[in-house]
């Protein structure tokens, strides 16, 4: 029934032309009839008729053998398994159920029937449900893909090839490559990346969903692991920018206070089952180890997702992007090898640019992307088109386990964006995040740097004080003794021995730590040898470049006004 007919029917009831019962009958009569199972009607026949009527609507889908529906909750569209109780009324949106009844003279008539939960359950388990379109995920924006060797844009609705449902229409325009590249680069100009390689990986992170969801990258893609030196540096914000470019938001998975890893697993499973394409493990503290996630990152077929009070659903990992943010990313070797680590420094005292897409200030870069989303996505598609047009080239960089991803994005960042090689500085970062000692030393170096104490030799007890002041946890100290100087010093000494061995210097991230032995005077005026540690910056910080020359005509940047740090 169209909006017009529905409005007319409601109006007619309101002014008394027809009664509500007749209105309901009019509405119901618009739907095709389905005879409920029973008597001569088998379950499979009835279910076939039901699902044949529902399938073209593309509102109910089949996911791992389960009937699911698209729902919207708090502005977020997600997939939900259809339960029998809900199915009773949901099916009525598509058909009207009838059952045969005999009149006194023996004639069979069909009368309306409300199906029971048991009947709904029979429908939900009937084989005919396979008539519904299979679904693997959702997207809130068009999809760029390749069909018969040519670029093809899937604008809206269900795409049977990728099994993705595009839930919103976004108008894609042709953007000249130069303008697209400048616009995308400009999105990151306020970020202080630790190295140029980190900047390249940030660009890669923005492009990866388009390439992966569109099937240009067949193999796995790494998790976007954002790491910052301090809180409020913008690591999570950058990841939200990526989701915003695809007209979406991140499904945030956080570790519940009262739960262990199980809580994370459940949150992760829920996001997967809901079909949320951007899943963010936000502000992870301490060592991040999620066995399920490690298998997910390399799963070639399907992955069993499980949410609280739900059965296991096999999901397709290729329809998701994983993001992890932390101030000191520390993880297992396996997950480190499956991450793309992007490090940023907090820009203390820096006023972020106010973006004014329509001449009116609304917020920071993320808000700008939200406002100008069709244009930003058009820029991403322009880059993908260019790469495709040039024969889908790759470099031969093999410094990441996910080589296909690495080589494609390395080519794009170097040749289209004229940026640094993708993997520059990444191996060291991977090694460090997989090594708790190195992660600790990086955090300590950042704390010393914050207090302008780089280049000064310190003894372990003095380093402990810095750790205490900045809340840096020393690996190996029991949680209940982390404030005990003696235990901390012992753990610190052991840690340094592990790191240095027989050498006198160690490199961690962009820092060099040197060890020296000097005689110090004890309480009873006799001297003894003691180790001193000096932290220095090996690589000078990669300062953000000045403003890129703007090639964006559709948006203008407001004057640098102090309207608060958007991060």
């Amino acid at each position, binding site marked *: 029934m169209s909006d017009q007919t529905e409005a007319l029917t409601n*109006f007619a009831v309101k002014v008394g032309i027809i009664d509500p019962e007749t209105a309901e009958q009019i509405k119901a009569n618009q739907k095709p009839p389905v005879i409920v199972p029973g008597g*001569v009607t*088998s379950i499979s026949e009835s279910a076939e008729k039901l699902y044949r009527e529902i399938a073209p609507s593309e509102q109910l889908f089949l996911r791992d053998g389960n009937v699911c529906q698209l729902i919207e909750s708090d502005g977020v569209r997600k997939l939900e398994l259809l339960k029998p109780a809900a199915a009773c009324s949901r099916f009525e949106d598509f058909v009207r159920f009838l059952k045969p009844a005999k009149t006194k003279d023996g004639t069979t008539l069909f009368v309306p029937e409300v199906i029971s939960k048991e009947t709904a359950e029979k429908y939900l388990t009937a084989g005919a449900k396979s008539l519904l379109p299979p679904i693997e995920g959702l997207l809130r924006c068009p999809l760029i893909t390749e069909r018969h060797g040519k670029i093809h844009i899937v604008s809206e609705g269900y795409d049977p090839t990728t099994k993705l449902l595009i839930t919103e229409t976004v108008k894609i325009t042709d953007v000249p490559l130069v303008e697209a590249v400048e616009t995308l680069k400009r999105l990151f100009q306020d970020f202080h990346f630790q190295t140029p390689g980190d900047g390249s990986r940030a660009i890669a992170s923005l492009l990866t969903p388009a390439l992966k969801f569109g099937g240009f990258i067949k193999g796995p893609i790494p998790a976007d692991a954002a790491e910052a030196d301090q809180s409020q540096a913008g690591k999570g914000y950058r990841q939200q920018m990526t989701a915003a470019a695809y007209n979406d938001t991140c499904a945030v998975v956080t570790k519940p206070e009262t739960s262990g890893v199980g809580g994370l697993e459940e949150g992760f499973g829920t996001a997967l089952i809901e079909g949320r394409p951007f899943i963010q493990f936000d502000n992870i503290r301490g060592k991040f180890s999620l066995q399920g996630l490690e298998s997910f990152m390399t799963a070639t077929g399907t992955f069993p997702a499980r949410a609280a009070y739900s059965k296991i659903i096999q999901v397709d990992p290729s329809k998701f992007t994983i993001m992890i943010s932390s101030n000191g990313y520390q993880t297992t070797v396996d997950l480190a090898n499956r991450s793309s680590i992007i490090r940023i420094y907090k820009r203390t005292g820096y006023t972020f640019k106010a973006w004014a897409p329509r001449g009116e200030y609304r917020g920071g870069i993320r808000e700008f992307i939200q406002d100008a989303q069709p244009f930003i996505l058009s820029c991403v598609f322009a880059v993908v088109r260019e790469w495709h047009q040039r024969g889908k080239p790759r470099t031969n960089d093999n410094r990441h386990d996910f080589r296909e991803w690495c080589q494609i994005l390395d080519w794009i960042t170097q040749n289209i964006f004229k940026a640094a090689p993708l993997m520059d500085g990444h191996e060291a970062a991977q090694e460090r995040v997989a090594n708790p000692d190195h992660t600790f030393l990086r955090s300590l170096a950042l704390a010393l740097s914050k207090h302008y104490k780089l280049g000064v030799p310190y003894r372990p007890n003095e380093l402990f004080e810095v750790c205490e002041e900045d809340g840096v946890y020393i690996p190996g100290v029991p949680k209940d003794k982390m404030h005990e100087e003696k235990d901390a010093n012992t753990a610190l000494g052991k840690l340094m021995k592990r790191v240095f061995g027989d050498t006198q210097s160690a490199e961690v991230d962009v820092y060099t730590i040197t060890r020296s032995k000097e005689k110090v005077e004890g309480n009873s005026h006799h001297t003894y040898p003691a180790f001193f540690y000096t932290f220095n910056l090996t690589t000078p910080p990669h300062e953000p470049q000045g403003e890129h020359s703007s090639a964006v005509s559709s948006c203008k940047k407001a004057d640098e006004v102090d309207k608060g740090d958007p991060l």
Partner: protein
Amino acid sequence: MPIIKPSREFEGSDVSSDASSLGCYAEYVAALNWGPGERDQSAWNAFLRAGSLGIDGETAAKIVTDYIHTVGGTFSPAKIRSQIRRAYEHVGSKNDAPGFICKAPKTEFSADKLKSMAAKVPGVHPELLQALSPVATDAVSSAQFLEHLYKPGEKVVVFVHYESQGQLLYEVGAPTSPTLPEGGPCGVWFLVNPVDGQFHPNPRQADKQSRRSEESVTSWRYLVLESDVAETNEWLSCLVQLPLKIAAIYTSGGKSIHALVRIDAVSKKQWDHERDAMKHIVVTLGADANAMTAVRLSRLPATRRGEATQHLLYLDPDPDGTPIISKGTTRNPS
């Protein structure tokens, strides 16, 4: 063709074969598509099946007509009788078509409901409607009327003789389109939905060549509401209150007033669905149910019917469903 499984009751063999045949038949009828546009074919199939199962014509007719009634459809008793006779002859069964079939009760015009609704907005007259029209109606010619309501390249068949294939094919936006007739003894009509201008066989009339049947329609855009029973001002009072996308209102050159409602259906089936849902309401207010067909001819405004003029009263090329009276402003308050 749906597959009918044997009745489980029949397998028990304690039910008479007549009852089981009836069960099978009822099941078969239920599996047929009784949606708009499909009922004729389904009724024919149902009677073929009834004949082959040896079910008497009266019972078959009752089941079929009850079914049509249940889904909100209508039927012609004569046609049902004819279908039964032909179907039973076809399968070699005894021709026992029923002598009488009760037609399903149809929605009826209610003068009380019309009056009651008209009283809510009294005093709506043609001049007021012309003042409320988004497009000034007095200067609109018949060609401009078509140019406003159809897209460039679309073709509209125009008639001076009602029972013909149309005297003229008007192509919107084409500089070479023929001049529209200024009038005719009985008036000038146009087919409300655009056509391709070609002749097609009409399977519902023994494949007679036609350019005004549904095979020629290119867009299921409009539906005509007209009333022969409602008093003019009451009918207008109702029309201005209805939340319908009324694109135009014009006189017939006689007593009747036609309203062109925008439907924008994607298919004939959908158009029929919309019509069926609306019919219950508008017929109660006086609309002519027989005029609500997708290939309806309607009066072309700004032409003459004998000495009278078919006046254009209201023209909104882009209606949004807001009741005319709720739009609140007159184009020309004077």
